C-alpha cells in the first residue's frame, strides 16, 4: 500500500511532471518540450527508423511546430497512439497536438471537441487487388472478401460504398497494417482497402509490386490534418499557421537551403518578408518571436521538400503530388495570405 503511494508520488514527480493547463503554449514553453501524438508506425508518415528516431511526413509537421515554438526541432516527445487512444490522449492533455493521419470529419471536429487546424494531405480511400484477379473496377467486387484496417473511417466508407452500389462483400477487420498485408498476400482476402497513400506505401514493400493494381475508384474524401484541443485558440493558431507557413514557403520558393539567406534581410517580395519576419510583426500576433517561420522552414524544409523527402516519387512510397500539388500546379494545397 505504502509502496504504491511512494511509487505514484515518485513517478509522478520524476516521470510525468507535465502540466496541461488552458494555455498549451505556456505549458510547452515551460516544459521545454512539445508532446506530439503520432501513429504507431506507418512508413512514410510516422515511423521510427532503425535507430529509434521518428521520421515521416506527419513527424515533420511536429518538428516544424516545435522549432517555431521552442527553436529546436528535436524538442518533441513523440507519443505513438493507436486509433483508439488518439482522441483521449489529446483531450486529456497527454499530447499537445495530434499529427496522426486523422481524417477531418464533422463529428470529430464538433462532438469530440477537437479542432482541426488545416489539411496537410488530401487522401481518399482506394482498393488494391492482385492483377491475376482481373478486376478493373471496384464495382466488380461483388462477393469479395475485403481486408480493412480497423479503427478508422475506412470501415464506414466501405460499408457506404458497397451499400450504395448494392453489392455484397465480406469485411475482414485487421488491427495493424502489417497483419493486413500478411492476410492480403496470403490470399485470405481478395482486396485490401485503406487510404490510397497507405496502399501505395504498402505496395512499395511487396516483393513484386507490379503484380498488384490499385483500382481507379477513390470511394471517399480523406482530408488528413493535424488537430488540437478545442478551446485553446492561441495554440490552434500556432499549429495552423506553421502548416500554412510551410505551404506558403513552397509557393514562394523558400526552401531550407535559401531560407537563411532570404530571412537575413528584407528582400523584394513583401510576403516573403512578412513570413520570415523581416517585415511586420506576424510572429508577435501569435505569441511567438519574428523568426518562428524561418526556424520551422530551416528545420524541416517547405511543404514540397517534406513531401519529396518522405513520401515523394523518389522514395519507396513513391506518391505523386496529385491533389497535393500547390494550387498553382493544379492541386488543392493552398495557404491563406500572410498579412
Amino acid at each position, binding site marked *: 500500500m505504502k509502496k504504491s503511494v511512494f511509487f505514484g508520488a515518485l513517478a509522478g514527480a520524476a516521470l510525468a511532471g507535465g502540466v496541461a493547463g*488552458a494555455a498549451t503554449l505556456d505549458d510547452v514553453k515551460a516544459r521545454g518540450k512539445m508532446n506530439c501524438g503520432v501513429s504507431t508506425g506507418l512508413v512514410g508518415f510516422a515511423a521510427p527508423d532503425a535507430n529509434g528516431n521518428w521520421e515521416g511526413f506527419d513527424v515533420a509537421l511536429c518538428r516544424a511546430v516545435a522549432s517555431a515554438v521552442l527553436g529546436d526541432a528535436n524538442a518533441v516527445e513523440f507519443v505513438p497512439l493507436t*486509433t*483508439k487512444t488518439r*482522441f*483521449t490522449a489529446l*483531450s*486529456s492533455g497527454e499530447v499537445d497536438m495530434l499529427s496522426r493521419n486523422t481524417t477531418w470529419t464533422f*463529428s*470529430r471536429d464538433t*462532438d*469530440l*471537441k477537437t479542432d482541426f487546424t488545416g489539411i496537410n494531405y488530401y487522401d481518399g480511400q482506394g482498393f488494391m487487388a492482385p492483377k*491475376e*484477379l482481373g478486376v478493373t473496377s471496384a464495382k466488380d*467486387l*461483388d*462477393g*469479395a*472478401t475485403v481486408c480493412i484496417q*480497423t*479503427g*478508422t473511417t475506412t*470501415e*464506414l466508407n*466501405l*460499408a*457506404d460504398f*458497397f*451499400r450504395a452500389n448494392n453489392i455484397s*462483400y*465480406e*469485411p*475482414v*477487420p*485487421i*488491427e495493424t497494417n502489417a497483419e493486413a498485408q*500478411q*492476410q492480403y498476400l*496470403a*490470399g*485470405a*482476402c*481478395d482486396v485490401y482497402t485503406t487510404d490510397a497513400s497507405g496502399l501505395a506505401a504498402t505496395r512499395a514493400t511487396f516483393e513484386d509490386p507490379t503484380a498488384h493494381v490499385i483500382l481507379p475508384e477513390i470511394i471517399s474524401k480523406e482530408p488528413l490534418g493535424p488537430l488540437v*484541443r*478545442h*478551446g485553446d485558440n492561441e495554440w490552434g493558431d500556432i499549429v495552423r499557421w506553421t502548416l500554412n507557413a510551410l505551404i506558403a514557403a513552397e509557393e514562394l520558393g523558400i526552401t531550407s537551403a535559401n531560407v537563411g539567406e532570404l530571412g537575413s534581410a528584407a528582400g523584394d517580395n513583401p510576403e516573403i518578408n512578412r513570413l520570415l519576419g523581416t517585415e511586420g510583426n506576424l510572429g508577435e500576433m501569435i505569441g511567438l518571436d519574428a523568426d518562428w517561420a524561418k526556424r520551422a522552414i530551416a528545420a524541416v524544409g517547405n511543404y514540397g521538400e517534406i513531401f519529396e523527402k518522405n513520401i515523394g516519387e523518389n522514395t519507396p512510397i513513391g506518391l505523386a503530388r496529385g491533389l497535393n500539388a500547390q494550387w498553382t500546379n493544379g492541386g488543392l494545397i493552398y495557404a491563406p495570405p500572410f498579412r
Partner: protein
Amino acid sequence: MSTVTDPEQASFRLSMLLNDTRYRSLTFQAIAAILLALAFWYLGNNLIQNLRAAGLNISFQFFGEPSGYDINQRLIEYDSQSTHGRAAIVGILNTLLVAFLACLTATVFGVFAGVLRLSNNWLVRKLMSVYVEIFRNIPVLIWIIIIFTIMTAVLPAPRAFRGDEPEATMLFGAIAFTNRGIYIPAPVWGPGSIVVVLTFVASVVGVIAYRRYATKMLYAEGKLLPMAWPSLAIFFLPSVIMYFLLGRPIGLDYPELGGFNFRGGLQIGAPLIALWFALSIYTGAFIAENVRAGIQAISKGQTEAASALGLRPGRVMNLVILPQALRVIIPPLISQYLNITKNSSLAIAVGYADITATLGGITLNQTGRAIECVLLLMLFYLTISLLISAGMNVYNNSMKLKER
C-alpha cells in the same frame, strides 16, 4: 496499588474508540467510510472537471444510432444500418459462441492430455508434459497470433481451388479448408424435415432410456445387456428410416467456388477458428494439469482395489477414478472456463468481432465515447463472471452435501 479502579465506572470515554476492541471496529469502519467517500468524491470531481474542460458529456445516445460498419461474423441479422446497440449484441453473441466452443474443446484436450500424462507409455507421457509446459509458459496472445498466422500461411486461398488442375481440392468434394475459414455443407430444411428432427430427438431420448434400463437390470438382476450395438441402432435407425420414408426432406447445400469466394454452405471464419483453437489448446494445458492433480489426489488404494475386483484399466478409470476425481477437478475447471471467457477478449488480435472488438473497438473509435463503452464492456464481463461463479457455488454446495 491500593487504588484499584472501580470496574463499575466503565462509562464511555472517547479514548475507548481507539483502545476498546468493542468500539474500535466502529472507528475503523468510520475512517474507511470517510476515506472511501473522499476517494469517490475526488475521482468523480476530477472526472466532472475534466469532462467540462474538454466540453464532453456522458451520454448513451449513440446506442440508438446507426453504426455504419459491417460485421462478417454474426449470429443475428445485422447490417451497417443497424444500431450500435445491435452491434454490441452481435459482439456479445460472438463472445459467448467462441467461449462456449472453446470450453468444450479445451475440456476434451485437457482431459485427454491429463489422462495421457499418467499413461504407462513413457514417450506419450513425455510428449504430453512437453505439450503442457510449452503451452502453459507462453502468453496466450502469442499463441493466438501464431495460430492465426499458421492458418493464413499454410491453408490455401480460395484461388488455389480454381482452374483445371487446382493446387487444392475439397475434402470429399464437400468440405473446403481455406485460409478464410472452413466451408462445410449446410443443411437445407425441406418440408417434413421437422418430423425427421423430432424422430432423432426421440431416438436420443430412447438411447438414454435404454442405457438406464440396462444399468438397472445390471444392478437389480445381474443381467448384462449389450450396450454398444442397441445404442447405435436406436440412435441411427429410426431417423434414417424416417428420412427415406419421407423422401429425403433434408438436403445439403454444398459450398461451391463462385466469384471470389466459396458460395453456399456454411462458413466458419478463420478468425473464429484461430481464436477457438488457440484458446482451447492453451487452456487445455491448464485443464490437463487440473485433471492430473485430480486423478493423483485419489489414493492409489482405489486403483488397486478396482483392479483387484478384476476391472480392466479403462473401466478402472471410467468407473472408479474419474467419478471421484471429478469432485476435485470441477471447481478449477470452472475457473478455467471463466478464464476462457475473459481471454476471448483477445479476439481483437485476429479480427474476430467479439464484444471487445465491436463495442470496445469499432464503436468506441467511431463515436469516441470511451468512458461509456469501456464501462459497458466491463459490466458485460462482470455479469458473465458472476453468473459462472454463481453456478460454481451451486455446484460446490451440491457436492458438499454428498460428502460424508
